[in-house]
């Protein structure tokens, strides 16, 4: 119908698609078909999606186009396609959380965020791969398939939201929803060159996210630009009576903060560089290239008018052990419901085995090794006699980490660090070393444990692979993350003359 090519479409940001759809320049069916074609052509290599229903996507897109043709009042996101991490429960659409134990389950309800995105008129392209139950940093723990990083298909796309990061980076979706428990939005966004934001805990409903660690899980946007992230975040945010931990406060104004930030003026902004996250004496395990890009980006902030100082947060050193007690403890309980009784896979029910045996066999065969490792860890940490020493102690550390943040906010507006100590590593390099895998979350864990918002924005390449820059802000001040990230994005785009993703060479062909 127009002179917009399919390549134009799949290279567009979601904000651009939104504009083109609203102006009638393109239709949703055309946009959706362009993505479906690209998925058909390239997802065999990337492995981003676990489930794509082209017919359903085109039907939803057709409905939006028809409504628009009738002159109905539609929201700005109507007709824009998107991908959901498979941890998000979707009515009638297979949802596995990356686990064999949920193979074949078609939920009878929608997660609150899925319902909100549906009501906004977005078109679901499919469900993306992930580490089983969101446990991992490489998506290699998926029970189904390997997902490859579009920047280098021998490398991991990060995790646990690696299907979402790979899909967006490879142009197989304009944007996607991920979830972040200890860094699972920010780290995959960082290693695939995307913007990824973990909202303030309680600001996006968790109703219908298959729980990993209830006190940490948050859903958020994974996008090509900061503005897209803000738009998607606004669409899913807001109080939900179905989630008791949902904060009852007005939906934050984020897109406006992103637009303002893109103006580039950060004068008066006080920025704290966290010593414990890659700073002096804490640089072990960090790629030199990552630290170099980080230092350059801090300098860029200063050039934009920000006042930068070093801030010490001593308790952050304890974030990793605390996280690996709290998250597995909650997970061991959250995953108890997968017993083969009501839904999903049931193993060994042949009439000759009793209940306990069937439950044990179902879990033995239904869960992968990392999930079992964390269930055992968590079960142990919660056991009577060990509770205080492990879970109790970890909660105290959590309080200390929160206190470090609170103290820092007396002096600075945001805290910054690298998002991940390294760039994407080779597939298989860390599968036999869970502790090395856990170390990928070093920089993202403090914000998770304190429930504060944090964004990852691209800040250059190291060895030809993307590096992420993390901006953390006080609870409910997500707008600050967007403002700072947008300023950096605008300055960097201007300097290099194109968007970050446009710099991807030989994209996974």
């Amino acid at each position, binding site marked *: 119908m127009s002179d917009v090519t399919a390549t134009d479409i799949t290279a567009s940001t979601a904000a651009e698609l939104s504009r083109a759809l609203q102006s009638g320049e393109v239709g949703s069916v055309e946009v959706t078909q362009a993505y479906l074609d690209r998925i058909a052509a390239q997802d065999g290599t990337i492995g981003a999606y676990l489930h794509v229903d082209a017919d359903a996507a085109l039907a939803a897109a057709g409905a939006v186009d028809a409504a628009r043709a009738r002159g109905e009042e539609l929201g700005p996101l109507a007709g824009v396609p998107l991908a959901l991490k498979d941890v998000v*429960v979707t009515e009638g659409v297979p949802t596995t959380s990356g686990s064999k134990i*949920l193979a074949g389950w078609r939920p*009878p309800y929608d997660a609150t965020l899925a319902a909100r995105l549906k009501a906004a008129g977005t078109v679901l392209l499919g469900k993306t791969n992930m580490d089983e139950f969101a446990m991992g940093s490489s998506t290699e723990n998926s029970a189904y398939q390997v997902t490859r990083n579009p920047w280098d298909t021998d490398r991991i796309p990060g995790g646990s939201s690696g299907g979402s990061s790979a899909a967006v980076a490879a142009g197989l979706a304009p944007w996607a929803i991920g979830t972040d428990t200890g860094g699972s939005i920010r780290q995959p966004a960082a290693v695939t060159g995307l913007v990824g934001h973990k909202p303030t805990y309680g600001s996006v409903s968790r109703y219908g996210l298959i*729980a990993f660690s*209830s006190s940490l899980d948050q859903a958020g946007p994974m996008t090509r630009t900061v503005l897209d992230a803000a738009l998607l975040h606004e669409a899913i945010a807001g109080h939900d009576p179905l989630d008791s931990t949902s904060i009852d406060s007005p939906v934050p104004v984020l897109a406006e903060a992103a637009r303002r930030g893109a103006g580039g003026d950060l004068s008066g902004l006080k920025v704290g560089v966290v010593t414990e996250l890659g700073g002096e004496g804490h640089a072990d395990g960090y790629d030199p290239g990552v630290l170099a890009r980080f230092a350059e980006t801090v300098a860029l902030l200063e050039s934009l008018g920000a006042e930068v100082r070093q801030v010490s947060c001593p308790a952050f050193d304890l974030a990793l052990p605390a996280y690996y007690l709290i998250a597995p403890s909650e997970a061991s309980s959250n995953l108890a*419901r997968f017993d083969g009784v*009501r839904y999903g896979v049931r193993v060994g029910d042949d009439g000759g085995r009793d209940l306990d045996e069937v439950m044990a066999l179902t879990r033995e065969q239904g869960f992968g090794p990392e999930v079992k490792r964390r269930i055992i860890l968590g079960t142990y940490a*919660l056991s009577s006699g060990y*509770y205080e020493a492990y879970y109790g102690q970890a909660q105290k550390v959590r309080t200390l980490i929160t206190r470090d943040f609170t103290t820092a906010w007396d002096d600075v507006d945001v805290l910054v660090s690298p998002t991940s100590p390294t760039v994407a590593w080779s597939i298989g390099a860390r599968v036999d070393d869970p502790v090395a895998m856990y170390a990928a979350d070093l920089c993202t864990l403090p914000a998770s444990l304190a429930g504060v918002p944090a964004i990852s924005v691209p800040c250059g390449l190291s060895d030809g692979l993307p590096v992420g820059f993390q901006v953390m802000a006080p609870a409910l001040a997500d707008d600050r993350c967007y403002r700072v990230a947008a300023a950096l994005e605008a300055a960097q785009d201007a300097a290099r003359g194109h968007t970050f993703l446009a710099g991807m060479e030989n994209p996974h062909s």
Partner: protein
Amino acid sequence: MSDTLVDYDEVLTRYEPVIGLETHVELGTESKMFCGCSTTFGAEPNTQTCPVCLGLPGSLPAANAVAIESTIRIGLALGCRIASWSRFARKNYFYPDIPKGFQTSQYDEPLCTAGHLDVEVDGETYRVEIERVHLEEDTGKNLHVGGSTGRIHGADHSLVDYNRAGIPLVEIVTRPIPGAGAKAPEVARAYVTELREILLALGVSEVRMEQGNLRCDVNTSLAPIGSLEWGTRTETKNVNSLRSVERSVRFEMRRQAAVLDAGGRVVQETRHFHEDSGSTSTGRSKEEATDYRYFPEPDLVPIAPDEEWVEKLRAALPELPAARRARLRDEWGISPTEMAWLVNAGAVELVSDTVAAGADPADARKWWLGELARRANDAGTDLGDLAVTPAQVAELIGLVSAGTINDQLARQALDGVLAGEGGPAQVVESRGLAVMGESDELVAAVEAAIEGNPDVADKVRGGKVQAIGALVGAVMKTTRGKADAATVKRMLEERLISS
């Protein structure tokens, strides 16, 4: 495999019992504890469920504010301290009737603590200390198909009904109750009876024991008299009637005494109660108890009832049963002991309702503690479960005082009411139970009695007036009890003495 039992009186010559009760009460809220599903009893299996109470992946709980309020009101009625900070906790264990793999309950931060409830048995008051009152969710219900016992053992397969899963459940836990001696079984019963009255007065639960609204776990232990340490306790689970509470304590005392007499030791375990025999049998041993791995429920925010709200709830409490009884005692003019009989029989509200329906208090008490108590006992049910309403009892009393029927006919009328034949007046009508007036039929019966018993008639005529009783009896016999004895006597006197 019947247990050896020691004679009850003999138990008390050697042992001192300590009891304790954990009572679960299903609240009568419209919706479940953590979702909007209905709580109506008796619906088709699994029709009152949703993603939340089925524990589907991704679903989250949202606490029922009415249930929290009800729990606090129960705590207030029991004189508890209301926590200013309280949290739910997860109790983790695997069983098909708990859909999430954990029960959302309360652990070390319950809503109410440190209360008490005074109960009376035979004119003596026993103070039962309340350890805690907390709020949790009920489990689903397993139905084991194919076995002979209805238990999982020997069943072909099991079905689960999740309609009950997630119904708000309040657990009221007593501290150990020592010092009741021989009265321990009755104290246990009196406690549950009084608790039930309080719950009814508060209107927080229908407290229908037969529907499982109120379920008791009864702890019993024995220690040699004079011993400084308490004995090992057993926990008899799901004791579901007032009578069973009493019987289960009695049985456990007799059984444990036999174990101890034989030099054995009581095993700490849960036991099943059998309604038919009044006995208990071994359940699961507590020595292999599950580690529930309690931890604060991260999906729910803490409850922090503010003082002002709690005081408002306290001020709005209804008249509690003890105060109400004191008032009724005055109104009915009865002694504390007489009131205690009513309480122990579970008859206070029944009598009160009967009086409210127009009956004389003395008559109402007489019926509920006499004939009706006998019927309940024969049927093995609680008084309140008899198929007769206080209004019907009042109607029955009314018919007697109006002279329409006499006590004997009234008992027959009651038979009809209990058999479902309708209200008392209806039964009197349909069974033809009304007292005979001075009808031709009665005149004929009186004259027949005189003619048929000339010797007795002569004695009466000769001044042996008390012999008239035999003639009255003869008339009552021919009229099958339908005549009024006083009328008959007067008619006989008119014929034999005055003329």
